[in-house]
């Protein structure tokens, strides 16, 4: 089917406004392939079914929107309580000065901007590959654009149990920055890594993380987005899991005029586990979209999606979550819940939970709710002397805590809850 003119033009305009980073043989091939795929699929348009609830315009247009800088100096450093290897990007560019040495036992870390210029690299077999696999049955053109144009990123090869987490710290310094990062993480058999991410990459940013998790390997992923309100964000995570491997991902989102987080997970080895969770807090012109697609293509795998959003003053939350169970993926255990707490009548939650099952011996459940605050609980708290605002915030945290509880590490979990409490306390004034 020929691409409609409007899409063709938008895609050409965007590509014309960008320059492909200098690349060696392997990266050049991947990037050029991505460009031709992008031209045939076209960038997202607001009439696309997959973008029904979220307008892609600002993410697609050639000129990136501006975003005011947000001062977060009044907060403690994110994940500050954890011994970690820090890697800093400023407006999407690696900053060696602020970063630790990229050396960690059992882990090799290369920069895409350097390794991509070489003619050969291990990432050749992964870069753009999982992204490409993730294009069916639903196209994800912004990820393809990223494969073609990403200026930097990390290529991480994990061969053992990493002794401490990697923390990617993103700093936003220029109001007009427009950045793309593309990370590839390959975990060998029985390897283990915790990846932390925090902060906005740039005024507009598009990030892709592709991860191949081999048999018995484990990747923990904890991410904080916000509170930089004016940034426009599109993220994609593509994960492919081997036998008895595990991927657990949690995202905290606060503020943000436009955030689209896509997760595409393939369970390809028996007994693999994938858990994805998110807690989002939105106020006013806030739009946050979690789009998740989990494919079960092996036996006895477990997947879990837990997404919670608290919205007020006209904020919008979106959830599109799908579990696809392929023929033969027997004994699948799939679970999906998305819930919104609407603190007023102006806010909205748009949810599209989907199950598509082609195996006959599976257990899949899903649920989606949106509701107001529990007035009885609110009165009970107030009757004990807790002021209205604080009582509302206590109930807000209680609601989000179910998603935060998906984070297994106690220190990280406490850090996230402290942060939520801090944000709410500041908002209360």
């Amino acid at each position: 089917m020929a691409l409609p003119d409007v899409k063709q033009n938008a895609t050409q305009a965007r590509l014309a406004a960008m320059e492909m980073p200098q690349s060696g043989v392997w990266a050049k091939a991947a990037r050029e392939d991505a460009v031709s795929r992008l031209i045939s699929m076209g960038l997202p348009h607001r009439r696309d079914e997959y973008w029904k609830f979220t307008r892609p315009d600002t993410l697609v247009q050639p000129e990136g929107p501006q975003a005011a800088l947000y001062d977060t100096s009044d907060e403690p450093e994110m994940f500050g309580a954890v011994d970690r290897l820090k890697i800093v990007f400023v407006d999407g560019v690696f900053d060696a000065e602020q970063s630790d040495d990229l050396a960690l036992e059992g882990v090799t870390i290369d920069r895409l901007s350097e390794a991509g210029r070489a003619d050969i690299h291990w990432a050749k077999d992964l870069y753009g590959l999982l992204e490409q696999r993730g294009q069916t049955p639903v196209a994800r053109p912004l990820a393809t654009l990223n494969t073609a144009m990403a200026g930097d990123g990390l290529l991480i090869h994990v061969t053992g149990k990493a002794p401490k987490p990697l923390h990617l710290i993103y700093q936003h310094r220029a109001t007009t920055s427009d950045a793309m990062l593309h990370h590839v993480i390959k975990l060998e058999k029985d390897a283990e890594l915790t990846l932390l991410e925090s902060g906005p990459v740039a005024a507009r940013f598009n990030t892709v993380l592709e991860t191949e998790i081999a048999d018995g390997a484990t990747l923990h992923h904890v991410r904080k987005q916000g509170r930089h309100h004016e940034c426009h964000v599109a993220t994609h995570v593509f994960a492919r899991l081997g036998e008895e491997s595990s991927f657990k991902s949690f995202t905290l989102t606060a503020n943000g005029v436009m955030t689209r987080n896509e997760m595409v997970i393939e369970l390809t080895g028996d007994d693999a586990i994938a858990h994805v969770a998110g807690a989002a807090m939105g106020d006013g012109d806030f739009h946050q979209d979690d789009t998740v697609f989990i494919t079960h293509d092996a036996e006895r795998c477990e997947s879990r999606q837990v997404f919670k959003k608290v919205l007020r003053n006209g904020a919008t939350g979106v959830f599109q979550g799908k579990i696809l169970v392929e023929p033969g993926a027997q004994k699948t255990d799939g679970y999906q819940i998305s819930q919104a707490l609407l603190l007023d009548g102006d806010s909205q939650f748009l949810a599209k939970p989907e199950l598509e099952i082609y195996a006959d011996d599976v257990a899949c459940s899903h649920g989606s709710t949106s509701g107001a605050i529990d007035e009885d609980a609110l009165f009970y708290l107030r009757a004990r002397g807790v002021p209205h605002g604080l009582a509302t915030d206590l109930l807000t945290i209680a609601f989000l805590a179910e998603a935060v509880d998906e984070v297994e590490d106690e220190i990280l979990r406490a850090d996230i809850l402290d942060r939520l409490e801090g944000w709410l306390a500041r908002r209360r004034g």
Partner: protein
Amino acid sequence: MLEIKNLHVDLEEEDKAILKGVDLCVEAGKVHAIMGPNGSGKSTLSYVLSGKDGYEVTAGTATLDGVDLLEMEPEERAAAGLFLAFQYPVEIPGVGNMTFLRTAVNAQRKARGQEEMSATDFLKLIREKAKDLKIDADMLKRPVNVGFSGGEKKRNEILQMAMLEPKMCILDETDSGLDVDAMKLVADGVNALRGQGRGFLVITHYQRLLDHIVPDVVHIMSDGRIIKSGGPELALEVEQNGYADIIAEVA
């Protein structure tokens, strides 16, 4: 201490009069009981005094130590020293019992211009109070009232009362859903708080709670008014003859 004069209250949604001129005065250090048949307005009185939404005061006043209660937010009433032990304590998933109590204690202290209680002092105090009410560490850790039995919920109410040390306590059918042993435990908790100038208003259907919490004054409420007041013997009369006789006698 608690003074209610000619209080008239409508249910907001149904435009229906529930309280039709309640007059009541609970003096400092005294225990008053209100008894009455279903639908007489006893629970409404407790909700209106504590500030629950959904009720409209059409006439009358209610003051605590001379301060107008009806103009205040529920949290202000609590900070002023009013406490309602709920008939049906609310379950709050996700909020730990201990966090809840500490937040409440400190919010009230803050509202009264006092310093917040330190974590150590709070822990020491709550352990001591919880022990008397046979509330174990697990119940303190669990989310507020979630998965608590009927008896545990009521004991948790009394624990809150003991921690918050209010001036004026309203107990709304605290005996409902309790077996004899649990009732005794709850009554002991209440009796331990008697005196010290604290006022109590005990709302109940049955005389049996009043065997354990012996009141100074008993009021009979019917159709939104207090129709008769007397000593503890009035409760025994109700137990023997029911409300019908008293209602007929007054009418």
